[in-house]
């Protein structure tokens, strides 16, 4: 099998990556044309180091969500291999919280599926809610929470999986700008506190620069790695910082160039 979860770390040689994507391609069959297929991802090679925050940036059709699904193990690559340090946690654009459970029980379900014993679950769920600053929300139903609170519970649930790698698929895209800004600060804080590795997908250039240590730009149809930037601006950054704006302008130019290519034939 191509996608493997390296779950046992040997004593002497520690895993030196949180995710290792090697020459990964993915194509999907095209309906109506027998044997025909569309190449969505083409020869992607990317490492995410332990504790590193990487954003994948690209326009529509660059296959960034497909890549995230592959890393999450929800789908298999057509070629190449993906290795991760344990099973990654995945956060979606929609909160994906289960409406039949309270906020606290959603987190406890993740703990239970991970094998945490019952007496410890409640306490751990409370701790995680505290980490996303939702101390009083344990007994709240999903529909009683605002959009930003739901995403924070979803983040707490993802953290409950105790993965070394957190995959985020445009998790703040559906939020209003003020809430998104606050959640950027929260995510940065939690990333720094926990030492997690994060692979964050977005089409928002500013968001990518605001959050990441490394921004990876994907071209579209098929998705290829077009360019990479290392972001040296110290955290905590703000989305309106001039350094963030400068780099965003540069990346946006590059991104527009990539998009423009699709208009010409």
């Amino acid at each position: 099998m191509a996608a493997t979860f390296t779950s046992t770390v040997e004593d002497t040689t520690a895993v030196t990556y949180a995710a290792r994507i090697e020459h990964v391609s993915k194509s999907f069959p095209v309906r109506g044309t027998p044997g025909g297929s569309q190449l969505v991802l083409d020869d992607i090679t990317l490492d995410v180091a332990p504790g590193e925050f990487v954003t994948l940036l690209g326009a529509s059709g660059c296959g960034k969500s497909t890549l995230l699904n592959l890393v999450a193990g929800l789908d298999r690559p057509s070629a190449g291999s993906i290795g991760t340090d344990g099973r990654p946690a995945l956060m979606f654009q929609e909160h994906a919280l289960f409406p039949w459970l309270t906020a606290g029980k959603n987190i406890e379900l993740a703990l239970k599926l991970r094998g945490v014993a019952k007496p410890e679950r409640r306490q751990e769920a409370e701790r995680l809610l505290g980490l996303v600053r939702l101390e009083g929300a344990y007994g709240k139903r999903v529909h009683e929470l605002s959009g930003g609170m739901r995403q924070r519970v979803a983040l707490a649930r993802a953290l409950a999986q105790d993965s070394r790698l957190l995959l985020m698929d445009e998790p703040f895209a559906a939020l209003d700008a003020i809430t998104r800004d606050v959640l950027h600060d929260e995510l940065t804080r939690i990333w720094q506190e926990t030492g997690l590795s994060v692979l964050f997908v977005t089409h928002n250039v500013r968001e990518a620069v605001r959050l990441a240590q490394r921004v990876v730009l994907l071209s579209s149809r098929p998705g290829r790695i077009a360019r990479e930037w290392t972001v040296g601006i110290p955290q905590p950054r703000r989305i309106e910082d001039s350094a963030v704006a400068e780099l965003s302008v540069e990346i946006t130019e590059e991104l527009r160039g990539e998009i423009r290519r699709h208009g010409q034939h």
Partner: protein
Amino acid sequence: MASTDTGADTEKDGATALGDRRTSSDLAGVEAGLDALDSVQAGGPAPLRETLIRKVLPPVTAVALVLVVWQVLVWAHVAPDYKLPAPSDVWGEVHDAWTQGTLLGYIWTSVSRGLLGFLLALAIGTPLGLLVARVAFVRAAIGPILSGLQSLPSVAWVPPAVIWLGLNDSMMYAVILLGAVPSIANGLVAGIDQIPPLFLRAGRTMGATGLREARHIVMPGALPGYLAGLKQGWAFSWRSLMAAEIIASSPDLGVGLGQLLENGRNNSSMSQVFLAIFLILLVGIAIDLLIFSPLERWVLRSRGLLVTR
């Protein structure tokens, strides 16, 4: 949105007015404010008086109106007594059955059969529905038959059941099962098909597969559809049972409500026929009101799907 968003909107709407770099406690404060502004205000329970006016008054009025019209029709002699008994005659029949101590016996004979049959149907229909919904081969093989069976009137099963099993309780249960199992299974299949795929993906990334997925994600996710199936399954159980009791009578079987109805016809006692119909209806309403409606409302409300009271 087709392409990208450079984040310029974020700068415009964002917290530019905040000035200096935010400290952690500032952030917590902003967040608490946002949470308070965005949260849904929950209303308390309705006062008793309002509940009485909104929930109890309308059905009581409707029943009173039916009784009045009925009595007026009797007074107007639109039909002879043996065709249309007066409400007081039917009430007399209730009173007699009560004083003789047989009333509860009639009801219990049928209700116990109905409930036991329903529980059996539940035990068979649930795994069946799960299999049909989750295993493509099984769905292709028996899915269409299962939904087709729903449109077959369960009374059609009475003659073969009598021939195969004889005039006894197992024949009654067989008819109930054939009526209710397809409803329950189909309800569960519909419920499972309506689970947002996102929930299944979220469950899988948390490690819920196989039976754990069925228990923690699929069954709770399908609960609203499943409950609708159970409700219909009960209605089918009850109807099939009444059909079976009316058609198949034997002294060994005891007198249930269906039998009571048939006896009324044989005795040309229209008030007894009315009594039986009245009791059959009453049981149906009572089960729905006491079991299914509260269950359904609880499920919908806890998921925020019930907006109006």
